[in-house]
């Protein structure tokens, strides 16, 4: 029982909620870039929230189902066609064996999650099915691959489906541990600038523009997580994403809220946003 990958698309990978507990060995958590969208797609089918889905970026794959099953999508909005007939987004859809799923025009966002009844069954590596360079045998789908599914599809009862967070021009951030070492001018830049996603954006990191003032802050290698915003000496801001490294040598000036990581995961090159500062998280001696 499987899905046959006729065409892999631009960057399609198997993702769940990532691997927890291997950061001390330098292994990033990985997992779906937009975690809420993955949970939504799963919940539409009554799957476990962390079942593995396909994360599909910008240009979708062509997939042939070799089993009768249910599918559901969430995240970015694409035109979807099953045997060339349009099918709805964010709804459970019954698929018959041999039917072909194609992705048309991208209407909103850049990453869509395709859930299949029971979840995709590619092998777990270090407790997760999420594709990750240096950890899993593949980091993205290739033409001709077969993705294993459960033998039998039993669509479970659907409980609550999470509401999708709507982007309102702002990404919410907490001041990072090194925020206080910034100059007043750099702090103001973070508050006031309108930023833009540069062409350097992928599953590891999003670089954003414009730069802040340069700095000469020295920093011992420290721990970073998805959503940590690092400032390079040249003043460039780098937002670490799901596959980003686990330690970094640059000051951590901001930390994105979990919702905001999901939001930026749907932003393409040149998307604009401002930071909105959340109340400073607590600090105590």
């Amino acid at each position: 029982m499987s899905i046959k990958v006729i065409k892999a698309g631009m960057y399609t990978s198997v993702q769940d909620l990532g691997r927890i507990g291997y950061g001390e060995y330098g292994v990033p958590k990985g997992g779906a870039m937009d975690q809420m969208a993955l949970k939504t797609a799963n919940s539409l089918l009554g799957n476990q929230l962390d079942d593995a889905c396909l994360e599909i970026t910008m240009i979708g794959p062509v997939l042939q189902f070799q089993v009768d099953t249910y599918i559901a999508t969430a995240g970015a909005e694409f035109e979807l066609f099953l045997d060339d007939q349009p099918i709805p987004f964010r709804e459970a859809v019954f698929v018959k064996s041999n039917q072909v799923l194609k992705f048309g025009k991208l209407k909103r966002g850049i990453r869509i999650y395709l859930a299949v009844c029971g979840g995709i069954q590619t092998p777990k590596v270090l407790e997760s099915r999420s594709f990750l360079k240096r950890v899993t045998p593949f980091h993205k789908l290739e033409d001709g691959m077969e993705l294993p599914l459960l033998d039998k599809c039993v669509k479970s009862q659907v409980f609550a489906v999470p509401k999708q967070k709507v982007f309102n021009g702002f990404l919410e951030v907490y001041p990072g541990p090194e925020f206080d070492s910034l100059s007043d001018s750099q702090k103001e830049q973070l508050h006031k600038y309108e930023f833009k996603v540069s062409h350097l954006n992928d599953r590891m990191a999003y670089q954003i523009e414009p730069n802040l003032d340069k700095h000469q802050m020295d920093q011992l290698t420290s721990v970073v997580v998805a959503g940590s915003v690092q400032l390079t000496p040249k003043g460039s801001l780098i937002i670490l994403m799901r596959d980003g490294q686990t330690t970094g040598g640059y000051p951590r000036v901001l930390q994105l809220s979990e919702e905001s990581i999901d939001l930026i995961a749907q932003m393409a090159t040149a998307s604009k946003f401002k930071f909105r500062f959340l109340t400073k998280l607590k600090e105590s001696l």
Partner: protein
Amino acid sequence: MSYQLIYRQYNERSVLIQWPQLIDQALLKDINEFKKAIELHFPKSYSVASYCELMLEFPSYIEDYSKLVNALKKLYQNKKEGNYKSSLIRIPVCYDPSFGVDQEQMCDDLQISPAELVALHTKNTYTVFAIGFLPGFMYLGGLDKRLYHPRLIHPREKVPKGSVGIAGMQTGIYPGESPGGWQLIGRSPLDLFKVENDPPCFVCVGDKIQFYPISTDEYQLISIQIETNIYHLDKTPYVH
């Protein structure tokens, strides 16, 4: 030993605990002892140590931060010294020039002989201050000053897995093939990171590393032993 710590909430589910900004083995030991005490008390938590800090993460959002910090402070006060034991790991390195392709240039620059380079590199016991950048990549402290050397001006697109290099005041091993700008002085046959191993990396932050020289023949032999799963890692409790 007890330090003045700073606790800060890092995001919805994480607390960052910071020690004074020092590169110090006693401090690293203190971090590991606290890490151990936290793991025992909060079995669902997960933490990563690096140089002078500990990032502590919970599976769900932190609801009462003040309560959590009070519990952590209590744990720190009551933690027992010596609840954590670090390991001493001896890592074989073949310093043959076929692997240590930058040796000749380095020896020229540093005005030492290849034998002296090997002697200096294998003399010290190194401390693992962090693991990151790549899975299984160790940040090692303790390189002899006479081996400090700037990285390559033009980084290589491909550095082979196991390559042992020097960059600035750091030395380390590439756990997998990757681009890199370190000066290569040798190669180790060991797998610093392998998902089939449990755990996937045999080194932890706080462990001690010693390198010892092997010939190309021994390199081949150990490679075969690793492939056939009969290699025995030289890992012993470290006595302070």
